[in-house]
């Protein structure tokens, strides 16, 4: 102790010159520091106040709000939603969390402490991933008998995931582009790897987007488990572009939206959407659909385990099968209803249902999906 203090004092002599600049008797500085500290503390106190009073989002959704977790592209059918409010007194709050696989993963990561009450948009390709974890709360859906048997899930899965809509994921063709360029539009999946159609196709990634995954499954259904990777190699050699989400592919890259690719992975119901949303108004859609590439997609809804409002959540899922909601789906989200309701005229006219959509055994999809995605990434990325 004493030796160190002694050395210390000798050091004092040596360095006293250089400390003069940082005189320590400036009490003003101390006050300054203290003040800054106080302000910071106050700020933190304020914010921790708000964080303690602003309760988790599910708590803040009081009796009259039901939170619907869904993907970005979902459009709430406003009139039907208003009817739900009239019926139950609860408003629907939509929380969008990215593309459909992102939405599902996010929900899985927060399983048990969900971000909402109801999840909508889990599709048949990802359904088993949702069922493997304790993500959903089983219940008896009311109008389920109105849904065709082929779309319903069996056993406990049927109490967790309720089919709400269907659609066909198909390659869309910009007819005008092909007419202008004097190229005949492709009709079969195999043609997409043809050099005639080099650098013309844009897809959505099966890693992040559910139509992308559906298309991947379509290629496996067509080329078989041995041949599909070769087909993708051909697509790659033919200059296919893969975008992270359907939005990116359709709105940024498709020639109809101003991009540079006249072949895009979209839905069989995209042509009527073009007519409805066109500006200036069109009477005919710009796109046609390659029916041979169509893969059937079913979208499900379920009540999240740990939901703040499970009863309201169940009511919402039930309501999604009501005529009001089912009728509104085609023109709000451009999908087909699962119950027997009248289709809008533009759908009857321009949305051809695929006659024999590509499909695989759900059990096979469930067992192989993650391995396929891994192989696909290995090949394509």
């Amino acid at each position, binding site marked *: *102790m004493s030796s*160190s*203090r002694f050395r*210390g*004092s000798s*050091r*004092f002599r*040596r*360095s*006293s010159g*250089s*400390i003069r600049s*940082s005189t*320590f008797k*400036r009490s003003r*500085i*101390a006050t*300054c*520091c203290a003040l*800054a500290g106080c302000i*910071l*503390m106050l*700020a*933190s106190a304020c*914010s921790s106040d*708000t*964080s303690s009073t*602003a309760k988790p*989002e*599910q708590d803040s959704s009081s009796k009259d709000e039901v*939170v619907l*977790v869904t993907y*970005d592209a979902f459009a709430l059918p406003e009139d039907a939603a208003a009817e739900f409010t009239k019926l139950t007194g609860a408003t629907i*709050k939509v*929380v*969008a*969390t*990215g593309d459909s*696989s*992102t939405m599902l*993963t996010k929900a*899985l*990561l*927060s399983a*048990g*402490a969900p*971000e909402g009450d109801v999840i909508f948009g889990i599709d048949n390709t990802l359904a088993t*991933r949702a069922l493997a974890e304790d993500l959903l709360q089983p219940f008896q859906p009311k109008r389920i008998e109105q849904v065709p048997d082929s779309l319903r899930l069996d056993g406990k899965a049927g109490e967790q995931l309720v089919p709400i809509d269907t659609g066909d994921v198909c390659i869309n063709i910009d007819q005008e582009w092909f007419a202008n360029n004097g190229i005949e539009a492709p009709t079969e999946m195999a043609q997409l790897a043809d050099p005639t159609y080099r650098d013309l196709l844009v897809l959505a990634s099966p*890693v*992040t987007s559910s139509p992308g995954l559906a298309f991947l499954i379509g290629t496996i259904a067509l080329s078989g488990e041995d041949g599909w990777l070769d087909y993708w190699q051909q697509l790659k050699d033919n200059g296919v572009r*893969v*975008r*992270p*989400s359907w*939005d990116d592919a359709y709105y940024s890259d498709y020639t109809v939206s101003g991009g540079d690719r006249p072949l895009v992975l979209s839905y069989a119901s995209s042509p009527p959407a073009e007519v409805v949303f066109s500006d200036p108004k069109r009477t005919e859609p710009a796109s046609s659909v390659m029916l041979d590439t169509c893969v059937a997609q079913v979208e499900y809804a379920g009540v999240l385990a740990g939901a703040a409002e499970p009863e309201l959540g169940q009511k919402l899922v039930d309501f999604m099968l009501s005529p009001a909601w089912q009728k509104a789906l085609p023109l709000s989200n451009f999908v087909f209803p699962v119950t027997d309701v009248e289709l809008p005229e533009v759908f009857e006219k321009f949305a051809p249902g695929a006659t024999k959509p590509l499909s695989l055994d759900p059990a096979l999809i469930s067992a192989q999906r*993650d391995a396929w*995605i*891994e192989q696909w*990434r290995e090949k394509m*990325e």
Partner: protein
Amino acid sequence: MNFLSDQRPAGHQGFRPSAVKMGHVSRVGIIVVSAVLLMIALPISAVLLRAIRPDGVWGAEAVTRILGSPRTWRLIAVTVAQALVSCACTVAVGVPVAWVLSRFRFYGRSLVKTLATVPFVLPTVVIGAAFATVLGPRGLFEARGTWLAIVIAQVCFNLAVVIRTVGAALSGVDSNQEAAARMLGASPFQAARRVLLPTVLPAIAASAVVVFLFCFTSFGVIVMLGGGSVTTVEVEIWTRATRQFDISGAGVLCGIQLVAVIATLSIHSRISKRRAVSSVFRARRSDRLPRSVAEWAAVVAAVGAVLMICGLPIAALFERSLRVGTGLGLANWQHLGSVTAGTGLSIDPLSALWRSLLTASAAASAALLLGVLAARVIAQRPGGAADRILLLPLGVSATTLGLGLLLIGGRPPLDLRGSLWLVPIAQMLVAIPLVVRAVLPALQALPASLGESGQLLGAGSIGRFWRIELPSIRSAVFAGAGLGFVACLGEFGATVFLVRAASPTAPVAIERLLSRPAAAGFGQAMALSCILVLLCGGVLLAVDYLAAGDEGLDLAF
């Protein structure tokens, strides 16, 4: 505990940390350091555990799957390559600019220096947004989804590290030494090579290593500019965890990255040891007005480079925020307070900003408190284990931290996912190393005699800390507070795992807005980015001019 000081090497006599400081406060310090270390180590080990124990069963399935895939090795190679290229470009631009800024006096020099530092304090998402406008479809040229865009953005972001670190070393070189070399017959080139370079080389190397590390683990910039087609290990961790729901695979990648980060950090600490820290010594002012045409040209080139790399993207951001349709207007700014359909946000951007400010100030205050206390412990034992581990979050990928916090904070005994605590905790952990780095040099430069004379005059340990130490390092504390705050405000990589969709922070809101095709969302993202630029720029100015005085901010990497 004073005898500890006797065992330390006797370099830098008179400037090593005071032996008397060890005492009551330090015991608190050691507890704080242990707590912080635990908070960092826990999430990381949770992630690593998932790699070898997926679904509660020990197994090497994920490890063999990831390591056995050629794609993983391609990814690692690409990640290292892009970091090396970005790092080389940053040094190539930064060193000459630093030399010009330290050598020549000209009007607006400190402004240029500040401008070069602005990108470093900006959220990476904002940098990404800025370059998305310059290199996007309606910008100079379309380069999104290419490595070129990413390298340019990384240079912009990291330029400050090189300029500040090398600049500090350069201005520490006494111009008399060079003059003496010239007197003794050396040519200007020889003088620069034999006198200037050896003094500055360690600083260049240290800053290069830090830049490499930042580029290696860069996330926001690549997510924003990569367009999904360009990815690195860091982005892959995020993709696997949040897109593929492959937590164990993500854990393996986190492990790989951790090894790389630790290796890089140990190189850094080796270089740092060779660097003399002497901010108390003031070198003679060696700057002068440019004399010849060549010197003026050098100044113009340096200023031009900074304006091009750092000024242009920010200017573009403001221009874009004012662009409405084909004309100019304030619509994007006016719409900030409203929720716009189709933008993927369920709250309005201003609420996101407000929430961000609250969270960031809470996190930054905590980081400041813990960081200063931790720095005091480290100052006693520079280069020790605490020193290294506390640097980790600076290098450990934010995504690892975020994923880890989600894993440990999302279990039934301690389920914080529904609360708002996880995000500020992550931000705090990211900010602590910055606070430590800002405060540490000042603490180390404090003469030991200062505390000792305080003790001789009867001050207690708390009194010495409060009345002597803290006032002496006040500018460094201000700098640490400022840096910590902007780091918290801009945190993205960890936040993106932890944030709830209904309560995004401002950077997450920007990313969401830009990931959707809606034009209204793009405008809002631009306006929100501009607000963050103004906020972070303001904090930087305050730190640079009010707190740090004419020395400027000491980044001290």
